[in-house]
C-alpha cells in the first residue's frame, strides 16, 4: 500500500521519542476539576441563587415589617443578644444547608452520569487516571462548594449591609452603635469556621455517595438510602433501639454541636450567637472516624471507576 508523503505536520519520529512531552502532575487534576464545574453549574448557581433570594427577601421583610428586623432599621440595636445580626445569620445557615443539599445531589450523580451517557469512554481515552478523576470529583464537595458558599455568604452579607446602611441613613439614624453591635467580621470568622467543620464532618457522607454513584447502575439515591433504612428497621425490630437512625442524624447536623459552644438552645444553627470551640471538635472521635471512612470510600470509588463499564 502506498502512503502519501504529506506528513509535514508531524514532528520527526526521533524528536517525539527523545523528548516526551511532560505536563505538571497537577494539571490533569486542575482540568478535571474545571470539567466538573463546566458540567455542574449548580455548584455556583445554587449558593448564589439562595444568596440573591435571601438578600431580596430580607430587604422586603425589613421594609414591610420593620419591627421584625431590628438589625436593619430599629432604633435600639441591642433589643436582645444577637438580635441585630439575625438577618445575617439566618440566611447564612440557609446557605450552609443549600451547600449540603447541592453536595449530596452532586455526589450521587458524579460517577453515574458519565457512565450513563457513555462519555466515560471519552474521558478514559485521555491520560487521566481514575484516581485523578475521582479526586477531582471529591474536591468539588470538599473544597470548591464550601469556598463558593462562603464567598456567596459574604457577598449576600455585603448586600444586606449596604441596604442597612442606606435604610438607616435615610431614617437619620446613626451607624456607630449598630456597627459595633453587628460584629460582622467576627460573624464571618465563625461562618468560615462553620463551613470548614461542616465539610470535614460531612466528608464520609460525600465519600459514601460517590461510592454508591460509581457502583449503582441506576437510582443511586435509592441505593444510598435503602441499606441504611433497612439497617435501622432491622435494628428497631430486633433490639427496639434506634442507634442507626441516631448515628445518621448526628452525622448530618452533629457538626454544629460538636464544633460550637452553644449558649442558647436553638433549632436553626446560627440563629443565636455561639462561640467556636475547635478544641472540642478536634477531640471528637466522630471527626476522625468520619475522615478515615471518607478516605476508604473514596479509595473504593477509585477502584470502582476502574472496574465498572458504561451502563
Amino acid at each position, binding site marked *: 500500500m502506498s*502512503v502519501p508523503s504529506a*506528513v509535514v505536520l508531524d*514532528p520527526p519520529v526521533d524528536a517525539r521519542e527523545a523528548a516526551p512531552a511532560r505536563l505538571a502532575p497537577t494539571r490533569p487534576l486542575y482540568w*478535571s476539576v*474545571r470539567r466538573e464545574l463546566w458540567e455542574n453549574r449548580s455548584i455556583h448557581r445554587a449558593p448564589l441563587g439562595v444568596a440573591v433570594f435571601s438578600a431580596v427577601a430580607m430587604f422586603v421583610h425589613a421594609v414591610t415589617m420593620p419591627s421584625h428586623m431590628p438589625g436593619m432599621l430599629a432604633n435600639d440595636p441591642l433589643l436582645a443578644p444577637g438580635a441585630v445580626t439575625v438577618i445575617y445569620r439566618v440566611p447564612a445557615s440557609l446557605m450552609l444547608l443549600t451547600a449540603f443539599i447541592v453536595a449530596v445531589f452532586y455526589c450521587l450523580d458524579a460517577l453515574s452520569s458519565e457512565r450513563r*451517557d457513555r462519555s466515560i469512554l471519552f474521558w478514559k481515552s485521555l*491520560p487521566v487516571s481514575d484516581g485523578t478523576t475521582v479526586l477531582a470529583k471529591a474536591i468539588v464537595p470538599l473544597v470548591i462548594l464550601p469556598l463558593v458558599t462562603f464567598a456567596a455568604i459574604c457577598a449576600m452579607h455585603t448586600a444586606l449591609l449596604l441596604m442597612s446602611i442606606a435604610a438607616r441613613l435615610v431614617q437619620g439614624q446613626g451607624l456607630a452603635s449598630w456597627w459595633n453591635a453587628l460584629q460582622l467580621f467576627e460573624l464571618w470568622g465563625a461562618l468560615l469556621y462553620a463551613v470548614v467543620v461542616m465539610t470535614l464532618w460531612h466528608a464520609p457522607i460525600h465519600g459514601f455517595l460517590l461510592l454508591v454513584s460509581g457502583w449503582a447502575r441506576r437510582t443511586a439515591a435509592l441505593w444510598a438510602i435503602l441499606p441504611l433504612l433497612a439497617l435501622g428497621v432491622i435494628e428497631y425490630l430486633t433490639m427496639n433501639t434506634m442507634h442507626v437512625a441516631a448515628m445518621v442524624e448526628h452525622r448530618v447536623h452533629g457538626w454544629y454541636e460538636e464544633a460550637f459552644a452553644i449558649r442558647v438552645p436553638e433549632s436553626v444553627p446560627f440563629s443565636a450567637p455561639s462561640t467556636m470551640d475547635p478544641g472540642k471538635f478536634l477531640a471528637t472521635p466522630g471527626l476522625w472516624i468520619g475522615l478515615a471512612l471518607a478516605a476508604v470510600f473514596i479509595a473504593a470509588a477509585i477502584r470502582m471507576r476502574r472496574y465498572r463499564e458504561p451502563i
Partner: protein
Amino acid sequence: MACIEARGLRKSFGGTVALDGIDFTVEEGRILGLVGPNGAGKTTALNAILGLTRYEGELTVLGRDPWRERDRLARDVSFVSDVAVLPRWLRVSQALDYVAGVHPRFDRGRAEAFLARTDVQPKQGLRELSKGMVAQLHLALVMAIDARLLVLDEPTLGLDLLYRKQFYDTLLNDYFDRSRTIVVTTHQVEEIQDVLTDLMFLSHGRIALQCSMEEFETRFAEVMVRPDGLAAARALGPVHERQLFGRGILLFDGADRDALAAVGDVRTPGIADVFVAVMDTPAGRDQGAAR
C-alpha cells in the same frame, strides 16, 4: 517492534465467551482492520488493548501491560470507541481546553485546523451540533494527538459518505506515518480496503482469517464465470459461489491465476465478499458452533 502482541487472549462475560484465546501480533507502522459480525469480540479485543477491561492470557501494547499500566499507556494510545460518547453538556472550546490541559501530546493548532474545515464553531455547545458534527469534533481531537497507537472502533458511524471519505483521506495523508499504528473496526469494509495493510476476521471470539493485504491480494481471487465455463471453474475448487445477473461469481483461495483466467474475468475481491465466504464455509460455522 511489535506494537500489540497477544497470546491466548481470552475474555468471558459470565458464560459467554467473547474472546476465545486468540493469538495475534500487530507490528508498528501497520493499519489493521478488524472485521467481524456483531458480537464477534471486536470491541472486547479493543477494550482489552486499551486497558478498559481485564482479560486472561498475555497481552502487551507498546511493551506494556494495558490493564496495569493504562494511565501511562493512555499518553501513547488514543481511541475513538464510538462517536456518541462526547458529553452533550460540553462546549467545543471546552473540549479543546480540556484535552490541551491533560494531554501532553495534543496539538491544539492541529485540532483547530481540522475543525476549520467543518461547520463546527468553537463557541457551540455539543447539544447544538448534529451527530456528524460531534463525530467530526471527536475525530479532530483524536487526530491532533501525537499517539503511537490509534484505535478506531466504528469511527465513521453515522457520518455521511463525503465526510467518511474525507476522514480516511485525512487519516492517511495527515495522520499516518510509519511510526504510528492504527487498528480500526468498521462494518463499512469496502471503505477501508485501500487503507489497510493488514486484515483480521473475528468470528465468535476466534480469528477466522489473518493476513496482510498483500497476501490477501495474492491469495484471493474472484472470477466472473460465463455460464458455459461454470463446470470447469467449479473443478478448480472455489471456496464460495454466488450469482449475479445470471453469471456465477466464484471466489478462490490460493488458486492458480492462469487457470482462473482461462474460465473468466479475474479480479481482486472485496473484503466483504471474502468475509461472507469465510463466514459461510463449514470451517467458519464450526468455529462458531465450537463454543
